[in-house]
């Protein structure tokens, strides 16, 4: 027996269950939040508050829906990047969890041998797809984070860089593979990769949530497993809609209009930072002066 095998055997139970757990918390939980945020590029259209502070003429020009979509998404992204405390710690936790889950996942997946050719049951297909989606999913995640978060622009067809202050427009550029937001052949491939990646990961999470309930012994009877299956399927359908919605939202957003709105928001933000200081400093100084005089 080799050393790593004996390590795996010694901590067999703990590792298996941590593998199951990390898939739900934090990874699955993050996925829900991430897709909800990103789909704001669609549901932002009905977010009336997003356009309140904007120049009405600009909103008129690009359309209230587009302004709401880009505005809401930008607001979310700015919030995450500027106001979430310990963002780096959250990121490290996520990375460690993903690394742990995928490395062990590959190790475990290799213990099985798919046999859907002979036993074409739906459950067997899901078993096989769970493993395939894990492989595809991890490749997609690495590409996704490397290009957009670590700035490996050489992996982006147009060589553009994603900028959180121009979240929608630079994302559209990265997806379509050009600075103008026009489609390129490689851009189509990248977009298809995103479609595949999102689909696989959402399936992986929904199906994994279903099997986790069996693994931990939460759903025992066939009926309970079926019931929980409906819940997982509904959650999966919802996340799939959010994921696809987000992708198509970014693919079909007007890049120039998005840029205009992002710039407007940046202007408003820098103004916001100056104004409160200006307002609060003056009375304070006056107050001090009054105190000294007295």
């Amino acid at each position, binding site marked *: 027996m080799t050393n790593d095998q004996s390590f*795996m*055997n010694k901590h*067999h*139970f703990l590792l*298996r*269950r941590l593998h199951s757990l990390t898939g739900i918390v934090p990874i699955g939980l993050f996925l829900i939040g991430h897709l909800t945020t990103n789909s704001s590029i669609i549901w932002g259209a009905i977010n009336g508050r997003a356009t309140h502070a904007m120049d009405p003429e600009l909103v008129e020009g690009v359309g209230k829906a587009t302004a709401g979509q880009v505005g809401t998404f930008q607001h979310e992204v700015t919030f995450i990047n500027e106001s979430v405390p310990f963002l780096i710690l959250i990121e490290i936790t996520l990375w460690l969890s993903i690394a742990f889950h995928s490395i062990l996942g590959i190790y*475990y997946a290799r*213990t*099985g*041998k*798919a*046999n859907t050719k*002979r*036993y074409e*049951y739906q*459950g*067997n297909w*899901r*078993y*096989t797809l*769970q493993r395939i989606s894990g492989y595809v999913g991890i490749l997609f995640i690495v590409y996704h984070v490397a290009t957009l978060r670590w700035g490996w622009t050489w992996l982006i067809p147009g060589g553009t860089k994603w900028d959180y202050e121009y979240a929608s427009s630079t994302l559209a550029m990265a997806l379509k593979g050009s600075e103008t937001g026009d489609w390129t052949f490689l851009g189509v491939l990248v977009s298809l990769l995103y479609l595949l990646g999102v689909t696989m990961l959402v399936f992986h999470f929904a199906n994994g949530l279903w*099997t986790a309930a*069996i*693994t*931990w*012994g*939460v*759903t*025992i*009877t*066939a009926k309970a*497993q079926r019931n929980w299956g409906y819940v997982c399927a509904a959650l999966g359908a919802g996340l799939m809609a959010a994921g696809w919605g987000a992708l198509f939202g970014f693919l079909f957003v007007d890049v120039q209009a998005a840029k205009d709105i992002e710039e407007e928001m940046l202007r408003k933000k820098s103004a916001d930072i100056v104004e409160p200081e200006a307002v609060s400093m003056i009375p304070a100084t006056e107050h001090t002066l009054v105190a000294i005089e007295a």
Partner: protein
Amino acid sequence: MIQSNDDTDLATDTRGHAANGKGPSGARTIRVRIKRADSHGKNVRWEEFKVDLPSAGERDGAINVIACLQQIASNPVTVDGTRSTPVTYESGCLEEVCGSCTMVINGKVRQACSCLVDDYAPNDGDLITLEPMSKFPVVRDLWVDRSRLFKALASVKAWVPIDGTYDLGEGPEETPDEQQTRYKLSTCMSCGCCLEACPQYTLEEDESKFDESFVGAAVISQARYFNMHETGATMKKQRLDTLAGPGGINNCGNSQNCVKVCPKEIPLTESIAAMGRSVTLHRIKEFFSGR
């Protein structure tokens, strides 16, 4: 011949009764293709034989695959006229309760004794293929060595401890509900169908690796069966320890093939989930009690 009430869903794939005179009830000649070997991986070859089936009027009941193998043994000449040897296979009860005749028929695992030729080869010239199970070492032809399964049953102590230095008296009472659940679990015949169809159960020839190889659905279900028994439950802890370890319950990948192919329709996936819960609680208790 065996009159069996065949209700496994495996037969349905090739089922299809022809309405011509040579149909399921008519006299006909069918072909049987068999994957043979002298021992595991040695001289593996396919041989095809012809089997003559008398018409329904001339025979007593249905004809099963074992009867075909018997006919081949009486005159082992292949379709191309070469003289061969009788095909080796295991069988015992001939009524689907011992599990020994399990093999892969037309690509799916099942018992040969309950596999009726009228369902699988209703027409003249129809073909039936027989292969040994792929997850166990082949002893010869269709006969495989299932000792890994029996060793795994021993590893979860699949029995009720009744030996002692004094009379243990009558067993404890059981509710009808429990009795119903346990009865179903008790019908397992260790046939190996659930293991053959399981993607997580892979061939292991090295006996020293049996301990850390997946025990499979049947064994998990038997552990549940004996844990549910009041006297059997005295060894609950040992069973759960084995199932929590390498090769235990966590090796299951939840494809649920096992429950689909079990000829006894044992609710294997419920057993897996129930033992999943027991093992989880067992480990949590152990963590906090330190024992």
